[in-house]
């Protein structure tokens, strides 16, 4: 297997938040102890050194610091981490370096430190410009925090800002949602992510809907109306959708995230972070304390059971379902170059015919239609 671009993407996970949001089932823990955060930074730094020895001389053209809430880290720790990456890996001059931020955790000082460390993209978790919805979701900020954060980021010199928005929230009306989108467009970010809320089992929000019946889930029809409506508003404002949940002004697509959908390599740091390197997929251990212990011992924080053993056929499925998330889909010729097999030897052309209206094959590319996005799981399941 070969990948066409061998530049590497790095993902750094910060599994801490000031407070966990009600809908969240990601790997993150509430933490208000800067001491622990600094200890965690030290572990990340050790992992960076360790990983570099495993994968030396690799050129890096994207770094993504996600979470959790990376912006709760003390600024100097964040700077140390970025510096450590530069010390080890060969970081391209125009490397895209993104940090995720919660509006309530930013300050001018922090943002200045980010800029000086070379972070050139900031992704702000706004979710909504409606205070009732924000507090219902358990967010720690209100809409004014969001306005302020974006203004500060611009002032600090960020020229590539993403705003995360969420729809399909219990209690959200079409009007509220359109207002949120309008507010967002008014702030003119370079990039917008639109996420349909997924009620995950085990989250407080799930319980509020399914056990306590305090809230009612929106009907799927409304969710889809919100989605398509917002995409249209974004399109009219000069944004182009390039993935199921992502749109950007031309040239501002997230280089790092595109790697996930284009079968490129990435190396993950921090607890629970996943990697795809040299055709192998593995994941760091989930528990923070265990992770810290591994690194104190100078060992890679991966347990044997966290190495995936996928067949070539499994990987073909991954290539396709990740590729289909992009509006441009994937190229049959690239698939064949990657796997050395004829696409239609592996997949019966009948599969594509059966998905008429949801999937189109035009020349070398196969992609989902707009309707296909709504039921993309059904389409993708045909290829795994």
């Amino acid at each position, binding site marked *: 297997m070969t990948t066409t671009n061998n530049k590497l993407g790095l993902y750094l996970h910060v599994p801490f938040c000031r407070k966990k949001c009600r809908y969240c089932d990601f790997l993150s823990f509430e933490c208000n102890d800067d001491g622990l955060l600094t200890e965690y930074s030290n572990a990340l730094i050790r992992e960076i050194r360790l990983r570099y020895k495993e994968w030396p001389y690799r050129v890096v053209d994207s770094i993504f610091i996600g979470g959790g809430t990376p912006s709760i880290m003390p600024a100097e720790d964040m700077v140390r981490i970025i510096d450590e990456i530069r010390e080890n890996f060969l970081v391209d001059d125009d490397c895209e370096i993104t940090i995720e931020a919660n509006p309530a955790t930013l300050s001018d000082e922090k943002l200045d430190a980010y800029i000086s460390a070379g972070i050139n993209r900031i992704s702000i978790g706004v979710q909504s410009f409606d205070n009732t919805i924000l507090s219902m979701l358990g967010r720690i900020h209100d809409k004014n925090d969001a306005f302020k954060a974006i203004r500060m980021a611009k002032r600090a010199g960020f020229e590539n800002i993403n705003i995360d928005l969420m729809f399909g929230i219990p209690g959200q009306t079409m009007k509220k949602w359109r207002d949120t989108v309008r507010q967002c467009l008014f702030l003119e970010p370079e990039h917008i992510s639109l996420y349909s*809320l997924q009620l995950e089992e085990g989250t407080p929000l799930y319980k509020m809907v399914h056990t306590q019946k305090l809230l009612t889930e929106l009907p799927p029809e409304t969710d889809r109306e919100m989605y398509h409506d917002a995409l249209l508003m974004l399109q009219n404002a000069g944004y182009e959708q390039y993935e199921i949940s992502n749109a950007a002004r031309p040239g501002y697509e997230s280089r790092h995230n595109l790697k996930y959908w284009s079968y490129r390599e990435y190396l993950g740091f921090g607890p629970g972070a*996943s*990697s*795809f390197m040299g055709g192998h997929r593995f994941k760091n251990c989930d528990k923070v304390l265990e992770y810290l212990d591994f690194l104190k011992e100078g060992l890679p924080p991966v347990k044997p059971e966290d190495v995936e053993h996928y067949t070539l056929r499994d990987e073909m499925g991954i290539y396709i379902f990740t590729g289909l998330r992009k509006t441009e889909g994937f190229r049959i010729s690239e698939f064949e170059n990657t796997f050395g097999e004829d696409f239609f030897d592996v997949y019966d052309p009948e599969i594509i015919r059966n998905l008429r209206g949801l999937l189109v094959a035009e020349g070398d590319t196969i992609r989902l239609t707009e309707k296909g996005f709504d039921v993309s799981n059904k389409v993708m399941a045909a290829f795994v």
Partner: protein
Amino acid sequence: MSDYRKYIRNFSIIAHIDHGKSTLADRIIEKTGLVSKREMREQFLDNMDLERERGITIKLQTTRLVFNSKDGNEYIFNLIDTPGHVDFTYEVSRSLAACEGAVLVVDATQGVEAQTLANVYLAMDEDLEIMPVLNKIDLPSARPDEIREEIEDVIGVDASEAPLVSAKEGIGIEELLEQIVEKIPAPGGDENARLKALIFDSYYDNYKGVVIYTRIFDGTVREGDMIRLMNTGKKYEVTEVGTYSPGPVECEKLRAGEVGYICASIKQVADARVGDTITLADNPTEEALPGYKKVQSMVFCGIYPAEGEKYENVKDALEKLQVNDAAFQFEPETSTALGYGFRCGFLGLLHMEIIVERLEREFDLGVITTSPSVIYKVVKTDGTVLMVQNPSNLPDPMEIDHIEEPMVKADIMVPKEYVGSIMEICQDRRGKMLHMEYITKTRVNLHYDMPLNEVIYDFFDALKSKTRGYGSLDYEFSRYEPSKVVKLDILLNKDMVDAFSMIVHESKAYARGRFVCEKLKEIIPMHQFEVPIQASIGQKIIARETVRAYRKDVIAKCYGGDISRKKKLLEKQKEGKKRMRQFGTVEVPQEAFTAVLKYDDNK
């Protein structure tokens, strides 16, 4: 009496399910030293995995044991096992006919149950000596004195000397064996008379053909004899005789009073029917043994290959099962919804479940079964009579004068606190109470006259559920009776799916129609269009549900860490789709066919 017969004891063990019959048999085998403890599989006699798992005996096993009694003599025990379920009453009666006595196992914590009684009556019909035994004596909740009294009151046999045993712990087994010698009579008969032997079971062996289990009543049989099966009239040459202890051991001859096996190059078990009499072709006995009957299937259903399964494979498997099971019948049929398949006949619902499970396990086949049906007697306006067991074969309503349905006599035994709920579920199923009697202060026997089609639907599940498992049921066919039954059809997206059609009583049609529609609504996944589900009688729609069209099936986020999780999710979705069956434009999960038959506590 010839000397050898004095030292033979032919007996069965009879019990209600779960009262420990198989475990007791194991202990007896172990005690007589036939199988060492190490070789001893749990419940030796239950050979099939399925039997062991369900804790019931389906197929008989017969074993010859040697017991050295305290009286200084060596005795031959022929332990003839009986199947333990209401579906197999006839087989039980034939096994019992091969014995002189029956060891009646009663659970010392539970007491007498419906099947205990049913089996005891069968044993009494065969004039057997009944020897009660109290099992599970090691349990703290054992009430031996009370249960002894119960046995005497209810069954009317002397239980004062009933051994107290624990098959599980191996307590009291020695005493039990001595009592068998003492109480069960030695067999009679004359080894020099003309051959008269009973077939009480048979199975198919790949090398020997059908192996007949037999009890010789008169005469002697040897290898090379020409035998005649009196009811089928067919003649065969005996190729081997022997006994089971527990594997086959060839012997020179089988004489009056003995139990063993005969091989005679018979191709199908259906040719050596249980209950038939074996005699010598050139020197036959005058009179066959009494009690032979040709077993009749009571319950029918369609068995179809599941998606991706080959018709031929299912056919081969059914043929193999039939070779070994004379009570199971099948013939090809077609369904517009399910394609080519088979109409199968069974003794009862359990028998049907067993066959279906064996297809899935032993042959690794995926099959779809349609609603079980009984045989209806359709009297047409021109006076002709049709026997119909497939709803699709019901003639046009205009041609029908009336329909008759099979009725059964059902005996239900329950602790008295459940009488109310049992009456309710019986009434709900068109049962008429004939009478009711208190067996003891706390246990009641209810006698009902009920339509068989209500019994096979979900009655047993309902009974178990309403009595917390304490209720027990026994039933037998009584007669045909005119009844207002109608054909209920199910339409998916306006197309009738014949595999869901069923014949139900008019008074139940609305409720059933509604129930099936609701169930299907739960089970049928959303499609890209709305799917109406309708129940109809003729042209009249009596219930309707709609599966909403789906609009959304998408994962919003898929970044590095989500890929493996997402892959699993998509694989699961794909697996689910494989189990779908396409009807026109509608996809129906295979479990829909069984789900619409399941008893629902809330209904």
